[in-house]
């Protein structure tokens, strides 16, 4: 790597040293043993809820062809513990912290967001309006454009920090939800959370996931997510964080070419604990080979 490269990207006013960050729920302080957190574009902890929550029935994970299904539920120690312990554990690193918020009602979203946004170390909020593991057969706030817009505009009133709406891919038109989030006042869009999925053990005839259905992630879903990033980029001017199935630098670049400004990496870390920084190195190598000095040049650079 010889030439100087500018890896900075901007998400809703937040300048990141590079576009690679962990996906919420697939990252934790324990990974410091394997990974240099200072090299991350941002730190995104597991979604937090207002009160402690136990999470879902077991088994909570199963694997499928080229991916996995999880139904952790938002097992959470509640916002108090989060502010007292989790944030300080991440605060010593250079990467800005983007807190992921989960809630069961609009009011709770506003409430938790207000508290989190007040904390000086939290530099942005990612609203997990797309978790398919909540009650109600996998339904999520982010499946409805009007609710999405309302929810975000209410959170908007309690903070000026960047708000990223994490969209669900389980919708007929992700464009419609993206536009609603933009109108609601979001500063960025995460495309996307997991696909709702299910697997059955044919020997026992029981679901492989305790909660019956769960969220599908990993390389298998990437072509669906790339399509959605591209679709959203056509209708919204907000920066997009691509998320779903990124295993390599080339996968991350593919999402950026489709329209993403940054990329989250989740499941890949389960296979390779240094996936986040390896992917960053692979992007740098690609830029070197292709004589790209500004990473921003990649964003939305698809040729049709």
């Amino acid at each position: 790597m010889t030439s100087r490269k500018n890896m900075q990207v901007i998400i809703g006013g937040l300048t990141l040293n590079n576009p690679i960050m962990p996906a919420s729920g697939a990252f934790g302080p324990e990974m410091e043993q394997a990974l240099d957190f200072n090299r991350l574009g941002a730190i995104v902890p597991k979604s937090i809820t207002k009160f402690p929550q136990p999470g879902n029935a077991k088994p909570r994970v199963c694997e499928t062809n080229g991916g996995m299904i999880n139904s952790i539920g938002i097992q959470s120690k509640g916002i108090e513990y989060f502010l007292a312990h989790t944030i300080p554990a991440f605060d010593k690193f250079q990467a800005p912290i983007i807190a992921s918020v989960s809630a069961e009602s609009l009011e709770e979203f506003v409430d938790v967001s207000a508290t989190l946004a007040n904390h000086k170390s939290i530099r942005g909020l990612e609203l997990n309006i797309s978790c398919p593991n909540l009650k109600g057969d996998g339904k999520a706030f982010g499946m409805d454009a009007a609710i999405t817009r309302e929810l975000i505009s209410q959170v908007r009133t309690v903070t000026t920090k960047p708000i990223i709406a994490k969209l669900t891919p389980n919708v007929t038109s992700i464009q419609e939800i993206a536009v609603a989030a933009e109108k609601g006042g979001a500063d960025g869009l995460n495309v996307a959370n997991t696909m709702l999925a299910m697997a059955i053990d044919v020997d026992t005839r029981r679901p492989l996931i305790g909660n019956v259905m769960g969220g599908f992630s990993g390389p298998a879903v990437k072509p669906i997510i790339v399509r959605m990033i591209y679709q959203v980029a056509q209708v919204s001017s907000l920066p997009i964080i691509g998320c779903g199935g990124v295993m390599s630098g080339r996968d991350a670049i593919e999402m950026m070419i489709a329209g993403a400004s940054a990329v989250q990496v989740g499941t890949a870390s389960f296979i390779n604990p240094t996936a986040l920084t390896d992917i960053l190195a692979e992007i740098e190598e690609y830029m070197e080979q292709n004589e790209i000095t500004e990473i921003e040049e990649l964003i939305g650079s698809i040729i049709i």
Partner: protein
Amino acid sequence: MQRHQANVLSNKQVSNRYWHMVVDISELNIDVDPGQFFQVRCADTYFPFLRRPLSVYRINEDTIEFLYLVKGQGTSAMTKIQAGQSLDMMGPVGEGFSLDPSAGNILLVARGVGVATLAAVAQAACRQQVKCYAIMSARSRDDLLAIEFLEDYGAEVFIVTEEEGTSDVENVKRIIKEDICATTVIDAIYTCGSRRLSKLSQSIANELHIPGEIALEEHMGCGMGACFSCVCDIREGDTTKSVRVCTEGPVFPLHKVVME
């Protein structure tokens, strides 16, 4: 929790359903404790996708060994790995067993592949001149492994099998109480591999007021404490607490575990 490429020295079938692998760790600069495990990548494909948790079966100066049951996609793929190839493994992961060097006698209660996890305890006990008694339970004699190793470590081994109709809980209880505890003071119990035998071990430990430890198994996502796939409940005073088997375990105090 580093990822390593370890050289595979051998990978052989040792019985109908079990395989045994030896990998070289001389270059890896790691310390491995009995009860810890590795997250093994069984093949370089996306199916099997996830890593598989495997306990260290024996811990030697330059090598570690795995004893594994061929169960599904992952372990089947693992049998294809040949000596000379490398094994992509992450670890050592988790909290292992604790062994009080002043103990006189300990009891191991293993069922099936649970022996893969407890053998390392026998090995450590032997080094510390602690005497082992071991109940080994399995479907059949063919499924009983490592008996010779355990005996080499000076363990006194009691075999029970379905095949012979000796593996029911009542009989195991009788062996422990009459054949072992009647003549010997057991200072600690270690168990792995069966819910029924774990319950039995728990109640005996409770009754005899001796400490015990259990190695739990749960389906894992990350194996790094990040994903909360592998949780189970343990007792904390009057309440229960959710812990992650991968990092807070897999070994827990026997009396704290809530048997489901």
